[in-house]
């Protein structure tokens, strides 16, 4: 077998770390940007959101290729030596999921964040208290947004393959392993890996739902 069972735990851990970090990284810029956008009165606000919405489905191979050209040794950011490293995949996936994250966050911010913020302010809360209040109240929704963004990151192939190189023990993740297994004709392995990924995602989604229900107390 091209990909052995011993490699599997490493591959899974790597996928989770890489895509998890990518999700956090993307949140770091998506959240402030989304809040800024929702508060803005700029007439082009809606069109910008429209563009972001449409970028959600952008093909991952294309993002992967563009990033490869940027990070390549002969590319503009070649001196960072990021090509074929997990860090490159992290940055790549973070960028990839930004349109999705911003689109989802925008809905949450417009519907919930601004509503609870206004409520807190209208009840006389200080800015600090109001912010905590908003976080408290919108946490379940935010978790769902994070979950969906993480799913997209961990399930994508184009970026991981093109900027990561699918290097054994280094940048091989679940999706690139599946691609390799298919190429090698080891379909059973490919399906098995797919099932592993699916199971992981179901477990995670269920945990988030349960957490949400518990928070509703």
């Amino acid at each position, binding site marked *: 077998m091209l990909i052995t069972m011993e490699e599997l735990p490493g591959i899974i851990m790597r996928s989770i770390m890489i895509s998890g970090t990518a999700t956090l990284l993307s949140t770091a810029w998506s959240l402030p940007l989304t809040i800024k956008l929702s508060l803005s*009165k700029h007439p082009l606000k809606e069109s910008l959101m429209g563009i972001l919405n449409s970028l959600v489905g952008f093909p991952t191979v294309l993002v992967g290729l563009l990033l490869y050209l940027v990070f390549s040794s002969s590319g503009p950011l070649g001196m960072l030596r990021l090509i074929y490293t997990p860090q490159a995949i992290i940055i790549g996936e973070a960028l990839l999921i930004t349109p999705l994250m911003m689109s989802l966050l925008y809905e949450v911010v417009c519907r919930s964040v601004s509503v609870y913020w206004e409520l807190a*302010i*209208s*009840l*006389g*809360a200080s800015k600090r*208290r109001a912010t905590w209040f908003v976080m408290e109240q919108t946490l379940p929704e935010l978790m769902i947004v994070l979950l969906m963004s993480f799913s997209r990151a961990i399930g994508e192939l184009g970026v991981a393959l093109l900027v990561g190189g699918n290097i054994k023990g280094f940048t091989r993740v679940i999706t690139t392993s599946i691609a390799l297994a298919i190429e090698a004709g080891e379909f059973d392995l490919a399906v098995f890996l797919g099932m592993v990924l699916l199971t992981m995602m179901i477990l995670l989604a269920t945990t988030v739902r349960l957490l949400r229900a518990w928070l509703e*107390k």
Partner: protein
Amino acid sequence: MVREIVLKDIWFSYIKKKYVLRGVNIKLRRGLTLVVGPNASGKTTLLKVASCIYMPDQGRVLVDGVSYWDMPDEEKERVRRNIVYVHESPILIRGSVLDNIMAGLLLRGIDRRVAEKKALVLLERWHMRHLMMKRRSELSRGEQQLVCIIRALLLSPDFMFLDEPLAHLDLRNRRLIVELIRDIKRDRAVVVASNNPHPLLDDADHAILIQNGVVVGRNTHEVKDLLVEAW
């Protein structure tokens, strides 16, 4: 202690240049003020600007003569503790009715046990004790609305802004709210926005008519007569 809120030359827009309030000048003080106008005339926006939630594009919001938006943060907080705005659509938080009623006090840093005691007093006073442990999903819209108003009342503000408080209420609850407003307007300012103010017309001390973001009538008697005619 907030005695008077004056809106001076207020212009407000949600999307740049598409103004929802145009050159609004009004004075709000003790007693019941009705803000009346057709749908989308700017009533809600007017209330939100007057209750210091929204910052106007132009103009000043004067609280007892001092511009609110030029105050330092601690001052602003102090002012806000005397002003409460109740949304048209009830906004309830996760938890029981009791949690919701207490929310305002808790957000101001009041101790939980003290808040609970105060909340229970009010729940008794307004015959709502039976709703105490219910969750937001178990309440009718009218009941939710009531909870929001009681929540605001618990904060004993000098200024209460109520946005369409009578909408979506059944007869019994409407009577309850009208009674409540009559009661509280005596020692504070209550500003009610409505496009159907009929039950409150007699009790109104002041009335403002707004249309398309412009205040078209501020003479209470004139406005009242106009409204009476309409019905």
